[in-house]
């Protein structure tokens, strides 16, 4: 097992842990806004670590560039989604509507 494989395994495992942290946050945190934090932040860090680990394993620049693009798009999607969901939740809290 080469040095890059060891590093990749470490990155992948850490990434998995961040995903776990995100899920635990989603399940355990008390309200929508804190759950939002748990999920969008932890998951994106997890995705970064998984992408880095996989780029090392794939070993081609093309794959690495694609993985980096995927991560950046993931950040964008999470940012916009978190914003929209939080806005929606706030609107409903303000209206006292718990649908």
């Amino acid at each position: 097992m080469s040095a890059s494989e060891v590093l990749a395994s470490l990155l992948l495992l850490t990434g998995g842990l961040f995903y776990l942290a995100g899920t635990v946050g989603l399940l355990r945190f008390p309200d929508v806004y804190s759950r939002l934090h748990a999920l969008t932040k932890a998951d994106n860090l997890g995705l970064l670590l998984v992408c880095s680990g996989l780029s090392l394993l794939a070993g081609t620049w093309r794959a690495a560039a694609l993985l980096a693009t995927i991560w950046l798009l993931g950040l964008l999607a999470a940012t916009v989604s978190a914003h929209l969901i939080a806005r929606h939740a706030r609107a409903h809290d303000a209206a006292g509507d718990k649908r």
Partner: protein
Amino acid sequence: MNLAVDMLIGAGLLVLAWQTISGRSLFRGIVLFVVFGLTMALAWARMGAPDLALAEAAIGAGVTGALMLVAFRRLVRIRPDQCAQPALRRSRLAVPVAVLAGGLVGVIGLAVVAVERDPALAGLAVTEALTDSGLGNPITGVLLLYRNLDTLLEVAVLLAAFLAARTVFGEDESRPPTPARREVPLVGALLAIIVPLTILIATHLLLAGSREPGGAFQAGAVLAASGVLLVLAGRLQPATALSAGPAFGLTLGLMLFSLVGLAVMAFGDPLLALPGLWAVYLIETAMMLSIAMTLVLLFAGASGLRRSGP
């Protein structure tokens, strides 16, 4: 390990399917349906069908999920009582239908298990013939060279679906025009990044579709997703009149495919025998545009679209 992954995905699909239709609340069902689509893509990936996974990703993430949510929003407005209703009454036919369907799946499954694997001669012959044609992706090759009539008719069916749906759009004229929507921060930035990117990816899927997974249907669905995004953000507004541009886009695939397919007969080739790789690219491009246009118009529930906003 392989088996464990596959069993987990399979079990997940079954549970999700059951939960989606068991209908404790309508909104929950919609979310579960979106999740079901994601899991289905994983299943296609595991079955070695990346073409289907691509289609599932584009249609599931880009069109159907959004369609259901928008429909739910409209339902909340017009029939609030229906959304709050906790459980839908089960039809008396449900159990017999389920038993029959289960039996059918079982019989087909047993038949597939019992079938002896012949050396797939037809498959080998097709793969060999396709290498000569220059199409590296067997799926695109089979769709356009061996099942070309089916593919042509699929495009026709899509057009027919739009025309059929159009008869219902008429009711919408009584609907008050959508109020001007205010901009939400970040959405403009999202559009500025995602829309050009979808065009790039759709083009890539179309061109790469001759060699690797991809093709007109996937590319069209991706393009449609960017149209859906623009409709959702209010940059494209439904219009009642079908203007020349969309009408051209809707029919382009069918027209070009039939035209090329007929024109080859003048040179003594059989109907729909494509004369070369250039024709494949030409027809795939036309089909991509038609598929995207049809899906966006169906999503918007309108005969046409007009631009609005910045």
